[in-house]
């Protein structure tokens, strides 16, 4: 199966970054959380949305390097994103820190993109990367503010762009990676305004059909 080189490169870059130190988690922690995300998405016997993995004997290993709350958040986002509520977000961001919470969402997003693509295209799943030693950057962008269109803080000015566009701006590395993936998987940002843009395969209406059907089945209102 031939896959566009730009798509392979985007997936490989994002996947490998799971093993490197992030902004709030080490590479070892990020790989651990990514493993929880993979299991949450693919396990035939998913836990119910209201059951956290940390409350189930043996679900999480005994030698975790990441706080169990981060695993619980990863699991819920990966497995049951359509059930999330603002009180749940407040609880999780209170335990993890609100910017670390954003990185957890980003890890789940990267895993979802690569796992879903390879399954749909009939390709073998990738092994998670080997963790790279090092400390997280703990970079906090200047000018973070609350938003009306998201639960999470964003860079100022808030709500000047769509909610999904500003969602990861508080963790710039994840923001950059997410839009790199979107460019390769869907439509390059500069082409979004052209409703007739195509890679020569799917037309825009055909892309929107796939997008709407997947989003509907995932019970995502946005």
């Amino acid at each position: 199966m031939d896959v566009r080189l730009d798509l392979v490169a985007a997936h490989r870059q994002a996947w490998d970054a799971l093993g490197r130190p992030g902004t709030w988690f080490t590479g070892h922690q990020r790989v651990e959380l990514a493993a929880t995300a993979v299991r949450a998405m693919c396990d035939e016997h998913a836990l119910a949305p209201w059951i956290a993995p940390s409350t189930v004997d043996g679900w999480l290993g005994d030698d975790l390097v990441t706080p169990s709350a981060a695993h619980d958040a990863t699991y819920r986002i990966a497995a049951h994103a359509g059930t999330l509520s603002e009180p749940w977000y407040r609880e999780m961001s209170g335990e993890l820190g609100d910017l670390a919470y954003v990185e957890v969402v980003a890890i789940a997003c990267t895993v979802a993109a690569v796992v879903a693509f390879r399954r749909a295209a009939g390709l073998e799943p990738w092994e998670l990367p080997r963790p790279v030693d090092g400390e997280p950057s703990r970079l906090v962008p200047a000018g973070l503010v609350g938003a009306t269109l998201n639960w999470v803080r964003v860079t100022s000015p808030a709500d000047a762009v769509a909610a999904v566009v500003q969602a990861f701006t508080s963790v710039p590395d994840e923001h950059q990676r997410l839009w790199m993936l979107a460019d390769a998987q869907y439509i390059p940002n500069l082409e979004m305004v052209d409703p007739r843009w195509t890679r020569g395969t799917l037309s825009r209406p055909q892309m929107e059909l796939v997008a709407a059907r997947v989003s509907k089945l995932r019970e995502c209102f946005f």
Partner: protein
Amino acid sequence: MLSWSSNDTGTTTGTSVDLGAVAAGSGAVGIPLGDELLRFASAAADLRDVSAEMGDARDALAEVAGPEFMVDAAAVAANFHMMTRLADGTGARYPAPRLDDMASTISAMGATEMVSRR
């Protein structure tokens, strides 16, 4: 979901899509390869399904549209596994006036009672 089903692609390109068929997962969508794409997207949405449906839907799409087309359809499906988690994980919502404008789309897509509506 509404970001993708309510944009102006259809009107700008002169294409009419039956959102009821998209929501139901069956029926005439109204665009070329609509049936095959609807089946493929439905199978791609459920990562836990271990039945043969994903493989069958993939083969059916590749047979009529070619492997490159199928790979790009898989990439779009993957993008919305990613974007739905981004939107719901960060509490993304629309400004109220935009919701008013999308009322008919919300109804057609059967989204009025979705838990993720904020």
